[in-house]
């Protein structure tokens, strides 16, 4: 049995055959996971300095040089790193007195932080499989982003109290701006909202749950939804980027909606995070500072939007990007800014970010070439071992070596 670190579900029932160093037959691995496994032999990163290939030791010492010479340093990424590497990363940020951030600053950081603070109730995927009868996918399309989400946990499997599975025991509700593949499965449970209309939908749902007539076009459908939610025994809301981007940093309405639902029945929230260990980084930094991202260790612990990658790029004079590809995700203007800053990129594969970096340091692929541990998107710790031998160093070792050299 092998683990898949292709997404934050961290599937643990993978069977894989290796044929002469290449991936042969795989079982239970979704298409996304298969792509992740196949990438083991494609586009791997080499240690480079200014575009020319060097030995790993030279790359590490040059990386340390870049970081040591910076006054306003940003350590970014960490979503595709093991828990041990993330811990060393936070340690390093503390020692160097610099800023540390991860992609959750422009995705679901706020939702995760609210969950970690205890303001939003949460549960594990095993609870969902065993007990949940209503699954709400809000601005979330797991069929595309986490292919095995519905089949492993949230809709199709039989569980302890849900022996009849999706046919009779479960209800899927999708709230989205378009008819996504997940919405195709939910059929009648699909609520189409206009972009940015999540707040209005929350207001209408609150009114419905409060026994009022909602001010929406299809009142009957909304009232039916209210009845369904009121009657459910255990509901779960899976949040996606759609919700995170729509609420624009104001989660109060969502928190009060979940609070209202919890007055009537039991409802939990699980974010569908992108990178395999985003939750791990959020938890590690939260344990250390009380915040999940955008933290500066310059003069004590400071937190704020000015320390997010989108704003801090103006102020910083060096960046280290670990296991992430912000150049591919950020808007072009920010990506251009990033490319002009002296950058150290630590990654297993060649990406847009590593192409723009001054120094690149390769690492092993976690879960395949290196062992470690990570937090699944619901916060459950998963430990995995290496399944194939490799010359690449594990991420934790590389980060430790860079820290020592600095």
């Amino acid at each position, binding site marked *: 049995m092998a683990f898949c670190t292709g997404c934050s579900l961290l599937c643990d029932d993978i069977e894989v055959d290796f044929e002469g160093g290449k991936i042969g037959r795989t079982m239970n*691995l979704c298409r996304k996971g*298969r792509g992740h496994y196949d990438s083991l032999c494609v586009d791997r990163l080499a240690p480079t300095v200014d575009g020319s290939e060097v030995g790993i030791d030279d790359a590490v010492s040059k990386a340390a040089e870049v970081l040591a010479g910076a006054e306003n340093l940003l350590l970014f990424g960490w979503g595709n790193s093991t828990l041990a590497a993330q811990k060393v990363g936070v340690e390093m940020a503390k020692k160097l007195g610099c800023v540390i951030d991860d992609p959750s600053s422009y995705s679901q950081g706020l939702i995760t932080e609210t969950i970690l603070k205890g303001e939003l109730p949460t549960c594990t995927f095993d609870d969902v499989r065993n007990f949940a009868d209503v699954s709400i996918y809000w601005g979330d399309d797991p069929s595309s982003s986490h*292919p095995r989400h519905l*089949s492993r946990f949230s809709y199709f499997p039989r569980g302890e109290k849900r022996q009849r*599975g999706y046919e009779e025991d479960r209800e899927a509700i999708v709230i989205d701006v378009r008819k996504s*593949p997940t919405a195709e499965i939910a059929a009648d449970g699909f609520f189409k909202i206009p972009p940015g209309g999540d707040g209005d939908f929350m207001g209408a749902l609150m009114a419905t749950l409060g026994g009022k007539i909602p001010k929406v076009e299809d009142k009957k459908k909304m009232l039916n939804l209210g009845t369904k939610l009121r009657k459910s025994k255990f509901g779960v809301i899976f949040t996606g980027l759609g919700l995170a981007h729509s609420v624009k940093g104001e989660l109060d309405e969502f928190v009060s909606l979940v609070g209202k639902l919890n007055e009537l029945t039991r409802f939990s929230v699980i974010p569908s995070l992108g990178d395999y260990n985003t939750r791990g980084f959020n938890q590690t930094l939260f344990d250390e500072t009380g915040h999940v991202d955008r933290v500066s260790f310059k003069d004590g612990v400071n937190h704020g939007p000015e320390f997010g990658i989108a704003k801090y790029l103006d102020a910083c004079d060096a960046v280290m990007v670990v296991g992430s590809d912000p150049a591919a995700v950020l808007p072009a203007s920010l990506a251009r800014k990033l490319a002009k800053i002296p950058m150290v990129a630590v990654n297993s594969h060649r990406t847009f970010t590593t192409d723009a970096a001054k120094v690149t340091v390769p690492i092993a692929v976690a879960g395949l070439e290196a062992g470690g541990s990570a937090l699944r998107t619901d916060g459950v710790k998963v430990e995995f071992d290496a399944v194939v031998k490799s010359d690449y160093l594990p991420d934790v070792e590389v980060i430790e070596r860079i820290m020592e050299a600095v």
Partner: protein
Amino acid sequence: MVSVMEIYQLLPKTNCKKCGLPTCMAFAVGLLGREKTIEDCTPLVEEPKYEKKLEGLRELLAPILSADATETGMIIHTEKCYGCGNCVVACPVNVANDPKGTAIGRGPVSGKAILIVEDGVVKCVNVDQCRRFGPEKVLCSACIVTCPSKAIEFI
């Protein structure tokens, strides 16, 4: 999806009974169910006046007769499949045959599952266990309705 009427329109419509069936409509049903082959209709194959109809029929039935379809008529469009395993977990036969594996959302453990995810896409095995197999088939559609990408169809 090919309909019986589409096939019937491309047959001689003479009800000559040479195929062993009473009408051309019955033969069209037989063709769709893959109990008969195009060659069983001797006038269509031998007489030159039906040449165009024969060509059209071969074209129409090409996906049905291709090797991709299983004996139950299942076609998996692997280029559309995500490998999400929804069909594997929802399949009632898998649930009954593999209660400790696919029924609870994991990979199959019993070897009796009829749908599995191999190399990132779904694959049909043990086809004789499928509810759509044999003359007394049940028109189960669990794997079709649960597919987010419409990668599974039956002919």
